């Protein structure tokens, strides 16, 4: 592949390139087929509507990079949102409420990490149990959806903290949170010892152990961090919806994992980039936008098309990766 050689691209960035190019292809198909598709609003919506999913996927990326998996994400988001709504209704101050939510996420993640590492339980099971636990907990806190009427949420978050862009479009606060969280996460992953440990544990746990990486504290930190990001996603979700709902975000963890995989991260761990996850989120959002713009798919065709599109994407990505790797090898 001449282009790749020209750009002197390193082999490990190829999956990212593959994802980005397929995203570009899908976007141009959309531009060609629908009017208004190229508007700024559509792009801002991609970021704003998927902000909570994106933050959750950031946490999931860390876990998957270390070779684990986190199925509790959706339930933690729902639990945090209803927790926040209930506390706000009782008259607590927003700052305290948000801190409580984040604290809950941290403790939850730490508990799961402890079970996974200290007792050698499989991550799939512990996080699955965590998913059930958080879901049930949300319903115990409040059995139904609860609206939020606090002016901080309605006015400050909703209107004042949004960045005004041309054409009457606003860059919502939730999207800003997502971008900031992404940048912080990238810094953690690539510029700290912890980040390096995450990759090491995912790449080869035995080797990392022999090299002196403290596996125990690394794993504990990873799941705690994932819990924190899940709770942060829950906070952003609550900003987005201005309400708490214990029944929301069912199946969100699978969307997050799909975004991570589409972004080029291997489920076996050790390989992948947060930038890839970001692209994966954009791709998922783009698929949904394309379907809504089409406007003529009924429920079942929507499901079939989403499934097929994800499949086509994965196949394309595999193909581009193998072809470029072969091209470089030649």
């Amino acid at each position, binding site marked *: 592949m001449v282009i790749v050689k020209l750009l002197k691209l390193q082999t490990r960035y190829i999956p990212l390139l593959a994802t980005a190019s397929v995203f570009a*292809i899908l976007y141009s*198909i959309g531009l*060609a*087929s*629908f*009017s*208004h598709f190229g*508007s700024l*609003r*559509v792009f801002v*919506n991609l970021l*704003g*509507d998927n902000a*909570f999913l994106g933050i959750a996927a950031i946490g999931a990326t860390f876990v998957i990079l270390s070779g684990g998996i986190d199925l509790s994400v959706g339930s933690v988001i729902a639990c945090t949102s209803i927790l926040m709504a209930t506390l706000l209704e009782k008259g607590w101050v927003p700052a305290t409420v948000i801190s409580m939510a984040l604290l809950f996420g941290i403790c939850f993640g730490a508990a799961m990490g402890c079970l996974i590492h200290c007792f050698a339980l499989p991550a799939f099971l512990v996080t699955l149990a965590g998913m059930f636990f958080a879901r049930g907990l949300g*319903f115990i806190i409040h*059995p*139904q*959806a*609860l*609206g939020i*009427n606090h002016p901080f949420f*309605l006015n400050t978050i*909703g209107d004042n903290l949004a960045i005004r862009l041309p054409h*009457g479009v606003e860059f919502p606060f939730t999207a800003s949170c997502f971008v900031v969280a992404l940048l912080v996460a990238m810094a953690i992953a690539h510029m700290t010892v912890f980040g390096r440990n995450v990759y090491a544990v995912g790449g080869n746990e035995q080797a990392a152990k022999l090299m002196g990486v403290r596996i125990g504290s690394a794993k504990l930190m990873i799941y705690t961090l994932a819990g924190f990001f899940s709770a942060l996603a829950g906070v952003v*979700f609550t900003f*987005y*919806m*201005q*309400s708490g*709902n*214990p*029944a*929301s*975000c*069912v199946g969100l963890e699978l969307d997050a994992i799909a975004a991570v995989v589409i972004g080029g991260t291997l489920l076996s761990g050790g390989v992948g980039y947060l930038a890839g996850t970001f692209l994966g989120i954009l791709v998922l*959002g783009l698929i*949904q*936008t*394309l*379907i*809504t*713009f*089409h*406007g*003529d*798919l*009924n*429920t*079942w065709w929507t*499901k079939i*098309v989403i499934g*097929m*599109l994800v*499949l*086509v994407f994965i*196949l*394309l990505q*595999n*193909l581009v990766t*193998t072809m470029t790797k072969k091209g470089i090898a030649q």
Partner: protein
Amino acid sequence: MKKKLVMLGLLAGVAALSMLLTACGQDETTKKKLVVGFSQIGAESAWRTANTTSIKDEAEKRGMALKFSDAQQKQENQIKAIRSFIAQGVDVIAFSPVVETGWEPVLKEAKRAKIPVILSDRSVEVSDPSLYVTFIGSDFVEEGRRAGQWLAETTGGKAQIAELVGTPGAAPAIDRKKGFEEVIAEYPEMQIIKSQSGDFTRAKGKEVMEAFLKSPEGNTITALYAHNDDMALGAIQAIEEAGKKPGKDIVIVSIDGVRGAFEAMVAGKLNCTVECNPLIGPQLFDVIENITDGKEVAKRVVSEEGVYDQTQAAKALPKRKY
């Protein structure tokens, strides 16, 4: 060989995708039709499917372009769809909110974009009622009241009632329970002795009823109030398997008025169903035309619904469209 297969698969996929998308791209260049964006909850029941069909058929009949989005029963997807409609610049937005709360931000955005919003089938809880133009749909509380009223009259004010509740948190479940309890509060000898969620599905309705019948109070149940027909039909199977006669040993009243309920009434297994009309299409598009013509529209449009029992079932069955 594997690579060739992959290539073929990919080409087919990309080709299918482009065909799919360019096929609709052609609509955009035809004459300026009114564009309506509708966000439906999903296709979780036959009632919902009938609702969707009614709306789509009506749009076609009136020559309006309908952008239909299915939210797979998730509120996040409905919000995404509405914001996408705003981005597409539709003329009117209509949707059936899956839950009551959490719509303020997106409705405010629609208001800023000056797109009128109509609520269909379920209502929302917002601080500013001007965020939507009108709400067309059934009065779920009234449906619950009607069911309670019919049961009170038929049983002479005496019943030990088992209740199959809908999905927790869903507006119909909350309101139908409220209306029913309002009415039976006036009859001290009517009591709800068992109440559990059947999630509006047949399978859960059957499973929960089985558990009810095996509980210590099981033998004292004389009446069943199911929030929808599907749960009642599942419960009827459970009652039969327990060796009792549904419709005679246990009086059954449910809500929706689907075809299956009428067939059960003709067979003598269901006693009464309160209609919940899903065929809102005509009313919805009447309102849409009024809004675009600039006419005054009522804030609340209630669907016309009746109560059907066994005596009317046989006659009404052929006319049932859903």
